[in-house]
């Protein structure tokens, strides 16, 4: 069975380490906050200028001056800090964020990512995505393995305009988990979803990837 959105998010959350500073994108990445493993304290950064996102506010706590990058009302956890967009992106560009998790429309076998221009739709802008993929220490992408037409979104070369070149470290799809060896510039298949075979992943992956003898199953 392919992983559902929450299972993809849970697998991504397994990459978190205690004390990590993390930026979560919109969509499946936002769900990662619900799956942070017990005993791990993670600080969520919002690129509009907050380190230490708390839970959504109660009706009584709503504060128009406190939103996340998706423009949703949020709270700040104890110890949170607010700062300017220049400081926020200094944090991002300067390599001071441990990990970001973001969605994509295409990932290429050399670690390129395309996620800001939807084909056939008006371009709305890249927001902070280009800064995040260029500056964050570990870039994790979560996405559906195939498009609605059944075509692989993990491709030899992106056809859509890029968000970043050679930046993706890990790809988690509904079918499989891949890590990228930066030195060799190759993705390696590490895990398959429960009930999904290596052959099925191979047949649905247009990108050329290394497939070791030992491939484990995603813990769900």
């Amino acid at each position, binding site marked *: 069975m392919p992983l559902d959105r929450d299972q993809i998010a849970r697998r991504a959350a397994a990459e978190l380490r205690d004390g990590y500073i993390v930026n979560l994108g919109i969509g499946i990445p936002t769900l990662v906050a619900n799956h942070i493993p017990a005993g791990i304290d993670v600080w969520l950064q919002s*690129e509009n200028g907050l380190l230490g996102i708390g839970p959504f506010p109660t009706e009584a706590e709503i504060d128009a001056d406190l939103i996340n990058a998706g*423009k949703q009302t949020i709270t700040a956890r104890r110890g949170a800090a607010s700062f300017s967009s220049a400081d926020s992106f200094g944090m991002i560009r300067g390599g001071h964020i441990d990990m970001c998790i973001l969605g994509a429309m295409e990932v290429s076998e050399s670690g390129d990512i395309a996620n800001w221009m939807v084909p056939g739709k008006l371009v709305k*802008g890249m927001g902070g995505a*280009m*800064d995040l993929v*260029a500056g964050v220490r570990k870039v994790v992408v979560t996405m559906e393995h195939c498009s609605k037409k059944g075509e692989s979104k993990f491709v030899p070369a992106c056809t859509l*305009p890029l968000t970043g070149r050679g930046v993706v470290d890990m790809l988690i799809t509904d079918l499989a988990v891949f890590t990228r060896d930066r030195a060799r510039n190759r993705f390696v298949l590490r895990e398959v979803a429960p009930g999904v075979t290596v052959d099925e992943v191979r047949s649905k992956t247009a990108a050329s990837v290394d497939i070791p003898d030992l491939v484990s199953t995603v813990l769900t």
Partner: protein
Amino acid sequence: MATKLCATPGEALRDLRERGIIFDGCTVMVGGFGLCGIPEQLIVALRDTGVSGLTCISNNAGVDDWGLGLLLQTRQIRKMISSYVGENATFEKQYLGGELEIEFNPQGTLAERIRAGGAGIPAFYTATGVGTQVAEGKPHARFLPPLGKAGVNRDAFQERDYVLETGLFADLALVKADTADTFGNLVYRRTARNFNPMMATAAAFVVAEADHVVNAGEIDPDRIHTPGSFVDRVVKTASVKRIEQRTTRKA
């Protein structure tokens, strides 16, 4: 001490045309992220000056009937420099009709271009956008990344490609603070700070609107985010503070 306090947003902008500070085709920076921390009443006042052909530097373009959306409705904006403009049907219509030009900047590059402009830095190199559309046609160079603690920077010991981005400076900046004093010292609040502090440094004339205005000397110097020397005028407003995505949990 002379006060920079104006009675109304309209008064804060009223003489700027005759003084040549704003003019048709001028460039205006407008603070805010979404509708959070926008100088909402100054935007209304800017509309009412009738100035047109504006280039607006602002992370977003407001919504149809609030924020910069108001100036789009009246077709006073010719070009936007932004990172994301998702929430605005008026924008979409004018852009598709060729009436409106848009220059997309990565959000961090936009923030840094404004910071640089205000700090007298004409250009800087960044890794953001290298290999993408936004770097096309711009000068590139290879550098070792700045070395911090071991491992802070990815591939710290390998040279990387960087693209040259230029600083931005505007004719007018409109910013939103939580508290201002009569000398123009500003304190921002929570994520309403966003682009406002950099914009306050990066324009020939700077007007701030604030929820609270106090006398100079009443804000602890250590708590001031923007020193008053950057700010030309201050106005106290009752902000609507519209919320785009009201998300709550059960109490």
